[in-house]
């Protein structure tokens, strides 16, 4: 566990902009709550006691630091680069999402708000928010697209078990973006006593910064662990990108290290040249969605396009604004893998390493499976294994023709 303070010198600027991207495109009703959050986070960020308390929970409740594991069989089978897995799947609740929800729950408590709300796609952020709410004794409501409620029954049950009310959202495409709309609408009417725990590095400023800062623990640990185990930094860090929180968290502490290549992997669904994908950075263009200026998948009228991915957590037509900025500056590069490549990686990692990855994380694994064979043996790649795949087993079994649910 590192107690290092978050670097205040970095972006965003005072207007919440990462280069061109970010900003605050929300109705006036939300601006008061957003200013309150900005002010409270500025205080918390400079308060050693805040980080000490959060780090205590991350250590004793979440189980941090998560291991950095050398995937020997996978590396040897591919015959090229040495592949390491940052094991966020081993966190309490099974994904990186808890790093952020505990931080935001603490912020909510500092603001005197005892009700928290959240959106969820795959259900991982919903479960992590429900967990934080249970642990801090807060009221919690999670909005989830009706289609995702169907795909992720296990996580719905987990949230309910944790005392959270799960509200299925039937508007729009009935997936993640619609759940975000509904959570924002709840917040419009409940700002005085409710904090909206956004689950990714997205939404209006200061959310992209706050979520990145809370997830940056992943990258800081990775740096330290690389130094301990290899006495050097990795050559490449690879992470999947939907909204982009696990990628931002592991990339951020390496931004100032030009020798470390940063690669984000989006969901190509049935292919980026079809209508069914969620590769926002690859195929989108700058626009406004969910309070931020960023790359989006829209039609010529600014209407959000339908997106598709086998993974409910990557099924999002926008992306965090800092990723848009890193894409334009070239500091990170972004690629995509298809549903079938991700499914193959899901099986391969299970068979070769005894680790069942979340379908989201399987996208990062799939990209590394493609590129590792051609890389030299002294090349070190770290994959952010952002979540575990238990939640996906019923869905994947169905896709493999084995009905278990």
């Amino acid at each position, binding site marked *: 566990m590192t107690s290092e303070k978050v670097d205040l010198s970095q972006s965003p600027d005072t207007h919440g902009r990462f280069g061109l991207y970010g900003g605050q495109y929300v109705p006036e009703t939300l*601006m*008061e709550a957003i200013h309150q959050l900005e002010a409270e986070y500025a205080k918390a960020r400079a308060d050693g006691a805040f980080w000490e308390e959060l780090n205590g929970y991350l250590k004793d409740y979440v189980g941090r630091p998560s291991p950095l594991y050398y995937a020997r069989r996978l590396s040897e089978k591919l015959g090229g680069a040495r592949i390491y897995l940052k094991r966020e799947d081993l966190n309490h609740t099974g994904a990186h999402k808890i790093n952020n929800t505990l931080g935001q729950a603490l912020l909510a408590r500092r603001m005197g708000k005892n009700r928290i709300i959240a959106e969820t796609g795959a259900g991982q952020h919903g479960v992590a928010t429900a967990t934080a709410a249970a642990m801090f004794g807060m009221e919690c409501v999670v909005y989830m697209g009706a289609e995702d409620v169907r795909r992720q029954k296990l996580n719905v049950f987990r949230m309910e078990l944790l005392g959270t009310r799960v509200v299925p959202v039937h*508007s729009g495409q009935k997936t993640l973006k619609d759940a975000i*709309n509904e959570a924002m*609408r709840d917040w*419009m009417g409940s700002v005085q006593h409710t904090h909206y725990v956004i689950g990714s590095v997205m939404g209006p400023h200061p959310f992209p910064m706050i979520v990145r800062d809370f997830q940056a623990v992943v990258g800081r640990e990775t740096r330290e662990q690389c130094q301990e185990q290899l006495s050097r930094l990795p050559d490449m860090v690879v992470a999947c990108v939907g909204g982009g929180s696990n990628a931002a968290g592991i990339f951020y502490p390496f931004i100032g290290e030009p020798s470390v290549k940063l690669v984000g992997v989006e969901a190509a669904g049935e292919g980026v040249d079809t209508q069914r994908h969620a590769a926002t950075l690859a195929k989108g263009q700058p626009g406004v969605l*969910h309070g931020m200026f960023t790359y989006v998948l829209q039609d*010529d009228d600014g209407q*959000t396009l339908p997106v598709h991915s086998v993974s409910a957590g990557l099924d999002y037509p926008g992306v965090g604004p800092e990723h848009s900025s890193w894409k334009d500056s070239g500091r990170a590069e972004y690629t995509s893998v298809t549903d079938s490549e991700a499914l193959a990686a899901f099986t391969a990692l299970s068979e070769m390493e005894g680790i069942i990855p979340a379908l989201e994380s399987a996208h990062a694994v799939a990209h590394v499976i493609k590129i590792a064979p051609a890389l030299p043996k002294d090349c070190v790649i770290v994959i952010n294994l952002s979540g575990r795949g238990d939640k996906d087993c019923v869905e994947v079994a169905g896709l493999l023709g084995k009905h278990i649910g």
Partner: protein
Amino acid sequence: MKELTTRGTKGLLPYLTAGLGGLETTERILQGLAEVGVTAVELGFPYSDPIADGPTIQSSFTRVLEKGIHVREILDMVARFRRNNQLPLLAMLSYSIVYRLGVDCFLQQAVDAGIDGLIIPDLSLEEAPQVARQVSEAGLVLPMLVSPASTPERRQKIAALSTGFVYYMSVTGITGERNQLPPELINNVRQLRQTTGRPVIVGFGISTAEHVRRVCSEADGAIIGSALVRRIMETQDAGGDTEAIVKAAAEAVSGWMVGLPA
């Protein structure tokens, strides 16, 4: 829109989702509302991801988008209406749409069609200054929204940037019919008018003639949206044709205007 900048008239500004029941129906409803004597109409451009709108307006957006109606076609309809009608029209739309079409490009198209002003609910004070300049250069008004949660300092800044009038949201929350308006509403409106010296029009939650009268006892006008959109959708669902929809809309609106000074 000039009359809204000078106080003295009080009136109703119905909100209508463009394209609901088809663009020809919208054009006919607009003609009907002009005959009834409304002050202006707030014409909503459907958006896939509205954040400030409740279930009624959201579902009206979905109906229109499913029909594949585009911004260009809505503006063409406005231009046809404008040929023989001077009723002021305010376009209500997400900044997502404005940005995608290009701010200057959209403004030019809106001016050419005969739109008088824009209401952009997701354009916060923080992001608005540049757009406000462009809107003003195009000769349109940009009323901006004040919420009951806005601090006194923000109210002043928003009022200073607003043109045409200041749009006061009666409640913190989304659009939609409400049985009761907050008791402090009238005081809030009085204070906003006094401290800013600007005309104030109130929207969100206003659903009955009694609400309209009460709001207009202090405000310069009232906006009624979901209640009208619901009537239109109900008439549609009951199999009503264009004629029936136009009649239902005009009747509802004249009912809400009972008791307002002519």
